Every structure is written in C-alpha cells, then in structure tokens.
C-alpha cells in the first residue's frame, strides 16, 4: 500500500508538472512557435487573465465563467497590442523581444499602481482526497485535464477550420497568402489574439491556485519560452507534447530524488542539452527524420 501511495504521488506530481507546463506554454506555442514573435509580455497577459478571474469571481460570477471572461479579456488586450505595437516588429526578432519586454514592464507596473501589490485570492475548488498518508488536491488534476483539452482544441482549430488553414498559410508565406486573397493583417491580429486568449485562460486557471500579484506573470514567461523553444517550430503540437513530457519528466524525477530546486535546475539543464543537440527543437528534428525515412523507403521501393 505504501509503495502504491509513493508511486501515486510521483505520478500525481508528473501530471501536475505536465499540466503546469502545457498551460503556461499553450498560448506562446501559437505566438512564438507559429508566428515567430517573441512576446515577453505573455506572462503579463496571463496575469491579466488572473485578475479578471479574481474580480469576476468576487463579483459573484462562477469560476468557470470567470475563467472564460479571462480568456476573452486577455485576447482583446492582445489584439489591441498587436495592432498598436507588435505588428511593427514582425520579422525583427530581437526588436520584438525588447519592445515586448517593455510592454511587460508597463502592464505589471500599471496593475501595481492601480490595484496595489496583491488582491484577494480565489479559493482552490474541489478539495482533496487522501492516498495513503498523503492528500492530493483534485483541482490539480482538473488543471491537467483542461491543459489536454486546450491542446486538443488548438490543434483542432488549426487543423480543421478555414481560419486555421489560412493562419498556417499566412505564417509560412504571408505574401503568397495575401496574393490569394487572404487579409493577412486580420489573420495576424486574430492569431495573436487567440494566443493571448489561451494565456488568459491559463492565467485564470492558475489564479485559483496561486497568489495573484502584478508580478504573477514573471514566474511563467521564461518557463513557457523554454518549453516552446525546446519543442521547436516543426510542428507546434508534437513539439509541445514532446517538450513538456521530457521537461516535466526530468523535473519530477530529479525532484523526487534530490529536491525541488535541483529539479528546476535539472529541467533547465535538460532544456539546454536538448537545444545543444537539436538547435531547432525536438519537433523540427522529428519532421526531418520523417522526411528522411520516407525518402529512404521510397528509394527502396523504386529500386
């Protein structure tokens, strides 16, 4: 029984870590992975989502709906930012990095000035259950489930809708998409907004577990970037999944063997090693391999 509790504990941690990384990175996978924009203000959009959730919740709106509001709010803010600032910096990676870092500072400071250093937290719902002599929060598993649903719906949007096709085409070759009648300006704004909306939802979900402060977002931005960068641009979804599985796996393992801090360091170390070996990320490597395998097999067939 005790070993079962131990194993369950580790599995729970693993799922928790996976859910955490996926939620943090899900918006950025669109903004950075697909659009190639470095948005250092992504954490701040999550923070906006957290604030919207908290305010709506305390205004009497049920948490799930509050979180949806968070997504809508962050998405709208994102679209405004895209039109005002971001669109001047497409294809200029370093400049977009700098300007969005400025945005992140502006947003967090504005919230600090307007709402003060912290606001009333939202209680974590669903309580907990015991396994062995440990208790486990149910909400953490809900986070995991939502993370999986979010990835699935993002995939569905980009794979099956007209918007998704147009967005993927625009990101690959905006001039050609434009010459085929697609209003690429709108596609960019919508795609960016969608990424921000996902960030807002993630922020809203985390708002139920964390202290909400203007600097809420800083905890997520670097992590989200590492996850996305390790995933690579070859295929957003397989990239995200492979990256999250490897990073969360290593973190959980080291966490259990040594301690939480070393777990973090090990995760970043793993990210660094993966990037050294596969500078374009895991999914690019997988895509290349697939092509190579197909080539090899077609050669065999023809000979």
């Amino acid at each position, binding site marked *: 029984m005790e070993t079962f509790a131990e194993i369950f504990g580790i599995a729970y941690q693993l799922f928790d870590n996976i859910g955490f990384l996926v939620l943090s990175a899900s918006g950025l996978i669109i903004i950075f992975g697909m659009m190639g924009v470095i948005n250092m203000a992504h954490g701040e959009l999550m923070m906006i989502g957290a604030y919207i959730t908290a305010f709506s919740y305390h205004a009497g709106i049920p948490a799930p709906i509050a979180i949806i509001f968070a997504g809508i709010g962050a998405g709208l803010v994102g679209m405004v930012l895209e039109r005002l*600032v971001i669109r001047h910096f497409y294809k200029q990676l370093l400049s977009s990095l700098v300007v969005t870092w*400025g945005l992140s500072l*502006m947003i967090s400071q504005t919230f600090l000035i307007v709402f003060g250093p912290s606001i009333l937290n939202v209680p974590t719902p669903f309580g907990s259950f015991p396994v062995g002599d440990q208790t486990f929060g149910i909400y953490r598993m809900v986070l995991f489930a939502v993370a999986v649903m979010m990835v699935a719906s993002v995939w569905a949007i980009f794979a099956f809708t007209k918007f998704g096709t147009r967005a993927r085409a625009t990101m690959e070759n905006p001039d050609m998409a434009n010459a085929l009648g697609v209003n690429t300006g709108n596609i960019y704004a919508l795609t960016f907004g969608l990424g921000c909306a996902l960030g807002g939802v993630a922020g809203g979900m985390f708002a139920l577990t964390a202290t909400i402060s203007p600097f809420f977002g800083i905890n997520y931005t670097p992590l989200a970037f590492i996850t996305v*960068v390790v995933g690579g641009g070859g295929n957003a979804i397989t990239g995200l999944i492979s990256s999250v599985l490897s990073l969360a796996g290593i973190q959980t393992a080291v966490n259990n063997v040594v301690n939480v*801090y070393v777990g973090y360091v090990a995760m970043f170390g793993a990210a660094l090693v993966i990037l050294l070996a596969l500078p374009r990320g895991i999914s690019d490597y997988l895509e290349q391999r697939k092509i190579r395998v197909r080539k090899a097999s077609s050669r065999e067939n023809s000979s």
Partner: protein
Amino acid sequence: MKTPPSSGAPSSVLDPYLGLLNGPQTMGRGVPFWVGFIAIVTVLALCPEFLRRYDIINFSNFLISGFLALSLSLIWGYCGILSLGQAAFFGIGGYAYGIVALNLLNSHGNTDVAMIAGIIVPMIFAVFIGGIMFYARLRGVYIAILMLVVSLLIGLFMRQTADPSYTMGAAYLGGMNGLRPASADDPLLPSLILGLGKSVVELDGRDASFYYFVLGLLTVTYLGLRCLVNSSYGYILVGCREDPERTETFGYDVRLIQLSVFCLAAGIAGLSGVLYTAWGTYIHPDGFGVGPNILVVIWVAVGGRKDLGTALLGALVLEWVSLRLVSEGEIALLALGSILVVVMLIAPRGLAVTLGEYFNTAETYVMTRFGSRANKVTGSDGK
C-alpha cells in the same frame, strides 16, 4: 559615422592626436564633441563641490550603472548579441568580490584581489556559458532568453542559500538577505580598499573619493572601449553583427570573436557589480531578477545601442530620471517601460542617435541653405 580615417581630408583637426579615439565606429568626432565631452566630465567632477552628500551617493550609483550599459552596448550594439541576462555577470561580479574580500581582507589588508576576482570570475563564467551557446549555433533570440533564464536561475539558487551550510570561508551567502560575513554581527561587506605595497586607500561608497574613483574609472573604460571598437577588432565585431556568414567567408572564426566579446563584456559588467557591492556594501539575489536585467536593456535601447556614448548617456539620464520619479511614487518603472516602447516605435535605433541625426540634417540644411556664408567660415578656418 561617415568618414573613415583614411579618406584623405581629416574630419577634424584633432584627428592626428586622437587616433583610435576618433574612429568611425563611434559618434562624435569634431571639436564640439570633445569640448562637450570634457565639459561633461568636468561638470561631473565638480559635482561633489555643489551637491549634497545624499546626491553624490546616488550619482556614484548612476556612474556604476554606466559600466553595465557600456558592456551591453559592446555586445549588443557592436556585435549584435542581445543578452537579457547581462545583470547576471553584474551579480556574479558582486558576489565574487564580496566573498573574496571577506576572506582575504584580514590577511591582505586590501581588496585588490577581490576586485580582480570580481572581474575574472564573470569572464570565466561567460567563457563557459558563451562557449556552449555560440558553439551550439544558437540563434540570437535563444541566447537572449537563455541568458535571462541563467540569470533567474542563479537568483533562484542564491535565494535558497539561507541555510548556514552555504558558507564559504568567512562569507555566508545568506539567501534572500544577501551576502554577509559568516561570523560578525554587522552584515556589511567591505568597501573598496585599494592597496599598493604598504599604502592603502579606503574608498567609502558614501564619500566623494569613491565618486571620483568611479568617475575616473568610467572615463578610462569608455575611452578604452572607444579605442577598442575603432580598432581592427571593432571593425570585425561590426562585420559579425552585419553579416556573420559573409564575415566568416573572409576567414574569421565568427564564433570565437563572439565568445571573446561576450567574455569582455562580462568582465565589464562584473566590474560594475564589484563597484556596486563596494558602494552599498551589500549584494543580494534581487540583482539577478528580471528588474535589473530589463533596466540595462532599457538604458541601452533608449540611448542608442550602436554607440558606446549614447548607451552610456542613456544609462546616466534614465537613472537620474527614475530617481526623480521615485519621489512621485511607484511610477518610475512604468515610465521607463513606456519610454522604451515609445522609443522602439519612433526611434528604433535609440533616442540619442536619432536626435543626433536630426541635428546633422539640420546642420547640412543650414549649410546648403546658407552655403556661401558657411563656406567662408570654413575657408577662414582652414587658413
């Protein structure tokens, strides 16, 4: 930036004397620039005569920021490598200085070795981390973000060193509270004590002597870097920035050059950390956080990254502005963030650079408009 030294007509009567100081990679060459430069240095040197002690302490801090700005301008502006974690080297330098100073002060009586350690340790760290990044062919943005992560990680590590086991000789890392002596009750770190043979000079961060020392060091560093970027090495740095692939086809090992300049910049940032630690007699993990890292980028981007002088000016002016604003409440960082975003939109190459160019166009306009008069003036000058 338009006239190379070889182009025949010297751009200024000073050219023969100033050599590399007046090269094409730095803005400002003519007599007006050097008169202005000497005027600024003189005014700064005279500050302790006029200002209150409290202001001088702050001004010392501004000048210390200047080193950090110079180091980022060197790698970002001249070589095209943006680091969002430049403050990491600042912090490492500060900690290295503190740890070595605490351990050696009693036996040596000065902090010379500590100061050198505060420069060398960040450089060694830069060789290690830079070597990994450049030889893995990481792209620019990855380097920028990885450096931020490295900085945050070191900060994270330093925060959890409150346990007494994190003691290095006479130094105790002290977690959130920052580095402190292991035994004494007084948490302060040593000030700069420069020694030459038996004679020692103590430079207390609150005194004008420290201010003079930092001002002198900053002037020398600025002029030295000016010579460096106008030397062959500087040309090649710029080549690596403009088109690394093309530069490599001329036989330059671009990665080695990037690594060397990264390492040099780390040393300068480390010096900044040393001076900061000695100035305030404390160093704590917040130095590795997002705040200090973003500030450096703001100074350099707003001033103008492609010139040492404008980057330095950006740091000094913005530090002064934020000190003014701090008295208005918590608006300082908001203002700095807004300034950065606005400058990136209207003058992406930096405010000082763009203003300088406006000044130049205005000058040419005046020259062409009133050409005859202007010619006469230069004509008489020539005689």
